[in-house]
């Protein structure tokens, strides 16, 4: 299983890894991450030189290209502060994938060191900051899709803990929750038929549960599922877990939008 154990936190200064998807498409998720972490008393550094975690090429099989990007990312997130990222798969890339593709490289220790202080955001809030309650209000039936890169990590459970704690929020279960949405990085475009069929099956199960919103800790899954639903003419509202946490604070008057 993935090694996502982290040393206990010593301070509240963190580096935000926004992810390339949020940088390009989902800016509000990155913004919500900042708002939520600041609400919890964190001081946030945003290294301007950041680009991507290197995962697209890693999964696509071009490890040489991926290592080039990882080296840049490791240099960008220098220091000892925790790196917090609103994506289970980018986090897993940092603490698992990068180690795999660097196992024969001289700079493996530097890569592994960044991995050891990289946290998926829900995991960081619950297991790093030890926050398990959430004030405010979010009146909605929420279907939570456990993204696959949280398998073997505490992230899925952490997100559920937070969502369940939000006043007004009803977590609705749906069938085949263990199954992948079909995104899979380059898989989504190199196997478009199977990828879409997997997504359609997932959407069928989700729709049966009649949620108001679909939530996940990974925008990649939501971009795929939301994109399929929109293309079919039956859009579904997709939100990141941190957007729900932020909106709950705003709705409760605890945060100014």
């Amino acid at each position, binding site marked *: *299983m993935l090694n996502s154990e982290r040393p206990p936190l010593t301070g509240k200064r963190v580096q935000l890894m*926004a992810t*390339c998807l949020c*940088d*390009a*498409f*989902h*800016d509000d998720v*990155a*913004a919500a991450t*900042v708002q939520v972490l600041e609400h919890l008393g964190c001081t946030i550094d*945003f290294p301007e*030189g*950041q*680009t*991507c975690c*290197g995962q*697209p*090429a*890693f*999964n*696509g*099989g*071009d490890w*040489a*290209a991926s290592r*080039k*990007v990882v080296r*840049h990312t490791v240099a960008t997130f220098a220091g000892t502060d925790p790196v917090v990222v609103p994506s289970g798969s980018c986090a897993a890339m940092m603490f698992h*994938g990068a180690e*795999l*593709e660097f196992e024969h490289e001289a700079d493996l220790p530097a890569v592994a060191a960044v991995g050891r202080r990289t946290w998926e955001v829900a995991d960081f809030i619950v297991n790093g900051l030890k926050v398990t309650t959430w004030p405010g209000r979010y009146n909605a039936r929420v279907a939570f899709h456990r993204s*696959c*890169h949280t*398998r*073997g990590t505490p992230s899925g459970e952490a997100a559920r803990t937070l969502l369940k704690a939000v006043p007004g929020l009803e977590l609705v279960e749906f069938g085949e929750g*263990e*199954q*992948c949405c*079909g995104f*899979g*990085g*380059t*898989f*989504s*475009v*190199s*196997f*478009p*038929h*199977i*990828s*879409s*069929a*997997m*997504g359609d099956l997932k959407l069928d199960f989700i729709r049966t549960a009649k949620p108001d919103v679909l939530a996940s800790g990974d925008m990649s899954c939501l971009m*795929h599922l939301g*994109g399929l639903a*929109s*293309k079919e003419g039956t859009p579904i509202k997709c939100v990141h877990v941190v957007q729900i946490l932020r909106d709950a604070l705003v709705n409760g008057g605890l945060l100014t939008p």
Partner: protein
Amino acid sequence: MATQPIDQFATRLRPETRAAVYDGTKTGYEKRTKLLFDNYADPNRLRELAGEIKQHVIENLDTYLPAAEARLQANGVQVHWAATAESACEAVLAIMQARGATKLVKAKTMVSEEIELADFLEKRGIEALETDLGEFIVQIDHDHPSHIVKPIIHKNRSQIATSFEKHGLGAYNDDPATITARARQWLRPKYLQADVGLTGANFISVESGRLVLVTNEGNSRFCLAGTKCHIALVGIEKLVPRDRDLALLLNLLGRSGTAQQLTVYTEFITGPKAAGQPDGPEEMHVIFVDNGRTDVLATECRDILRCIRCGACLNVCPVYRQASGHAYRSVYPGPVGAVLSPLLMGERFPEKADLAKASSLCGACQEVCPVNIPIPDLLLRLRDRAKKEGVSSPGTPPMGAWALLASQPGAWRAALFGGKLINHLPTKLLPIPALRAWENTRTLPQWRGGEFRKWLKRRRG
């Protein structure tokens, strides 16, 4: 749209086949999971332990194989070594010819599929009859198994009833009990006529030389009840160090494969009929089959040799469920096959390198694996290997330009802002195949490149 062979196969798959595969795999997975978690407080710890045992075995095959050979010989078993599929087939043939044997009854063994034994023997005038019901149906249909535990998961009962009718096994009747009774009736005299019974082995204990066979139909017992000679085809990775290791592995194998605490029959065979025993084969042979396994052992994907062939990874795999086993063009399909099949190709690895791409890397396979094989990591290693060997991969976006961009912050920021162009262009006109593949079934969100950075600057004043 589909360019990868497995994706193309999935587009052509008949809906009833997909439905049969989906139902069979989903039921298998759900029952497996319930049973394991009902029976054990922490099944994952058991999977990890079993994985450590099997990893220990494959990393010490150089000492365990000779030790197993010595123990088997002491038990009166004749041991043969087959480096290739051909030599394994030849070894079976030689044993049969030495006895003047012409009829063989077979229990289910994936190694025999791998070495294509039945074809080999039949071309040489030897009847090689499958006695496992699923394999029997595959044989009369001239088909191939599409699942390592449930060979006919791709067929529904009406297709089977039609096959039986065509093969002269009675008028069309799709009642499962009738189908089974007809096969049984047809097979019974064959067991008595056969000269040799052939099985695989799920495990061989190095400590005792016990060969362990798990089945549900009792056909392997029949295979060995009337014949005078037992041949077991055994992959070299099938060893366990001690008898007591079987307790863990058998408990996991039945639950993972068929959601049974134990299979209906678990046979422990310690050699040929001994003096004073009333019956059983007088002669017993174990043929250890390499057929590329030593080469796999030499790679960084050696963990795949832990596999105990339970099929759990096939059952849970969303790609297998969409594409079916035949999509993998291999004896071993699904996640385990996507790793093992290209590796077993040896120098012809490129011919099946695409199998490793047929995964969203969701990790469900590792989560259910009774020996905790890190299948996603192994798939990734094979993708890297294929790239390094220059194997072309249709539909996979090239990463060179992206890597250049993503390692230069200035260029990256410019691209973030410049990317807004795609909001104003019909994407069908853009020369980016990956984008078109995306947009064919999905919308693309509005490009908002750099907006977060601007927001953060404003917020910080």
